[in-house]
């Protein structure tokens, strides 16, 4: 099996302006892609796929990661079909289960309907792919969205990075999956459509996989792919205990670090000892969906943690020098001007955590957008949300709410600019600011 990472090839061969244009197009902030740029993308894609094809190649398989991959996949797949008509095409990835065009059709169905691929696999691919290769096309999830979640993640083999040219990746690190699904059902998130149940792997196997991949690659930085690494507090604690223990027994492992997405929980659940264990085990960064500093907004989101929980979490992270990336959302449908003012107040309140690298990064994203298949998309009537006639499809940036009429897209962009300016003034670090502002500009230009 050979693989091509088209993201890597495109990012390395497009200039920053072209990459930004592609990003805005994929993020649904801009509805068109310049013809010249598309021709360049097509040429790069064809060249790199062709270079990996030989007389033994039978199947071209595409992993289409997320909702942001749908637009570009919808152009690359037909292109590939035209250029490699003799090969069998197979598609998988989370994006296949996403609704498109505001209809009931999901992307995998469109792929089959348009003839862009001969087969698709919905949901988790590990077991289904094995059945597909054995010719068993009736296995759940193959060509029909009747996929079943894998119950026992411990039965899957360890990730294997041998044969990959990892030197080509910036910030070299290995990915590790500790769980799938989430213990929450946040209104803005569609993860439950992919993994309805939260499933996690045993702590001992995680540490064993880290050890194996460290010895095979020499890379000691691990990043969890999980929606949250502490979904099971008990298992997370065990993982940290075992990793720390493994380092004590084998000094070669002492440089191992990990990072991952994390959920803010109550102090009675995430007790202080767990934060200490994270420090001892080598936790180097956690990404936390705070989303809003306003408690009532977070409870509407179903985040289920209080302002006191945030303070406790930050206090513990300060105590053990655990850097956080805070993911934030500007313009949630019930956000008022008072909430926005409170956001600005909290930026000032938490400034010291930014200075001391406990809030290592703030990620403001663009502005609130409503995906199909999220709980929020089913609450639109209750929230008085009108998606309007905006021609952006799945990610609806341009909604209005008759219950919160002041919160127009224009107002959301204004608030987004204000948090950017204050965050910068207060010294918070913010990745990809220019790219996000460029996408915001594209959104502003598209305002009617």
């Amino acid at each position: 099996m050979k693989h091509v990472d088209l993201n890597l090839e495109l990012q390395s061969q497009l200039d920053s302006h072209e990459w930004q244009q592609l990003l805005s197009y994929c993020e649904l902030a801009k509805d068109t892609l310049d013809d010249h740029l598309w021709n360049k993308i097509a040429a790069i894609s064809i060249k790199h796929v062709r270079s990996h094809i030989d007389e033994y190649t039978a199947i071209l398989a595409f992993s289409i990661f997320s909702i942001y991959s749908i637009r570009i996949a919808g152009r690359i797949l037909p292109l590939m079909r035209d250029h490699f008509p003799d090969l069998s095409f197979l598609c998988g990835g989370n994006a296949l289960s996403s609704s498109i065009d505001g209809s009931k059709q999901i992307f995998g169905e469109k792929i089959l309907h348009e003839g862009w691929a001969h087969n698709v696999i919905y949901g988790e691919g590990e077991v289904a792919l094995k059945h597909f290769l054995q010719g068993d096309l009736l296995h759940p999830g193959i060509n029909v969205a009747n996929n079943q979640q894998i119950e026992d993640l411990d039965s899957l083999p360890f990730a294997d990075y041998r044969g990959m040219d990892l030197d080509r990746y910036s910030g070299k690190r290995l990915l590790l999956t500790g769980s799938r699904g989430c213990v929450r059902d946040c209104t803005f998130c569609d993860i439950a459509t992919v993994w309805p149940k939260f499933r996690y792997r045993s702590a001992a196997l995680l540490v064993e996989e880290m050890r194996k991949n460290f010895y095979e690659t020499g890379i000691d930085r691990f990043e969890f792919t999980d929606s949250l690494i502490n979904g099971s507090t008990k298992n997370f604690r065990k993982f940290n205990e075992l990793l720390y223990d493994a380092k004590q027994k084998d000094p070669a492992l002492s440089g191992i670090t990990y990072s991952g997405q994390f959920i803010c929980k109550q102090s009675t659940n995430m007790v202080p000892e767990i934060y200490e264990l994270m420090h001892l085990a080598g936790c180097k960064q956690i990404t936390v969906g705070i989303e809003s500093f306003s408690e009532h907004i977070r409870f509407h989101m179903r985040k289920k943690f209080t302002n006191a929980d945030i303070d406790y979490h930050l206090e513990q992270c300060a105590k053990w020098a655990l850097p956080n990336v805070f993911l934030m959302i500007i313009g949630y449908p019930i956000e008022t001007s008072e909430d926005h003012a409170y956001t600005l107040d909290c930026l000032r309140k938490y400034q010291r955590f930014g200075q001391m690298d406990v809030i290592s990064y703030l990620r403001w994203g663009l502005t609130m957008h409503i995906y199909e298949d999220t709980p929020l998309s089913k609450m639109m009537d209750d929230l008085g949300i009108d998606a309007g006639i905006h021609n952006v499809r799945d990610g609806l940036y341009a909604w209005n709410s008759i219950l919160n009429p002041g919160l127009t897209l224009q107002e959301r962009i204004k608030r987004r600019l204000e948090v950017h300016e204050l965050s910068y003034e207060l010294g918070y670090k913010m990745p990809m600011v220019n790219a996000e502002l460029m996408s915001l500009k594209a959104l502003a230009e598209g305002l009617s």
Partner: protein
Amino acid sequence: MHKIALEHPSLTSFTLYADGAKISEGRCCGSIEIDLPRGEIEVWLNPMDKNWGIVPRIRIDGFLVNTYLAGIDVFDHMFKFIFADDFFWRYANMNVASILSSVPAQYRDDEGYISKYFGLSGANTDLVRDIRLILDEKSDFHNNT
């Protein structure tokens, strides 16, 4: 008043000086939290069994500090640093300088790379102004039609 906390299993006693004047001293059993005045701070440590060379965990106002970023000089028997009103800003600036020094040579001038991987971006003042202008134009157009 700011606080400094020291933590090491061998720590038995300490003496804290600010600008050469003894401010506090005392015995402790592995950890202690004391007032931290402004000035040139020296903290002398007495470890168990005169086991010199211990480096305690140091927390200032509850933050576990990186001694390099905090500008703390560590010796066998003591550590010293400047504690002033701008301590936290200096810590942040040292962190940024440290991050920039770790950027691979080929990316040193690549603002996009540094922004993406290290979160260090400019204010983007021009871009913000451009967006505001667009919003204003759209608003004017909307109001006039």
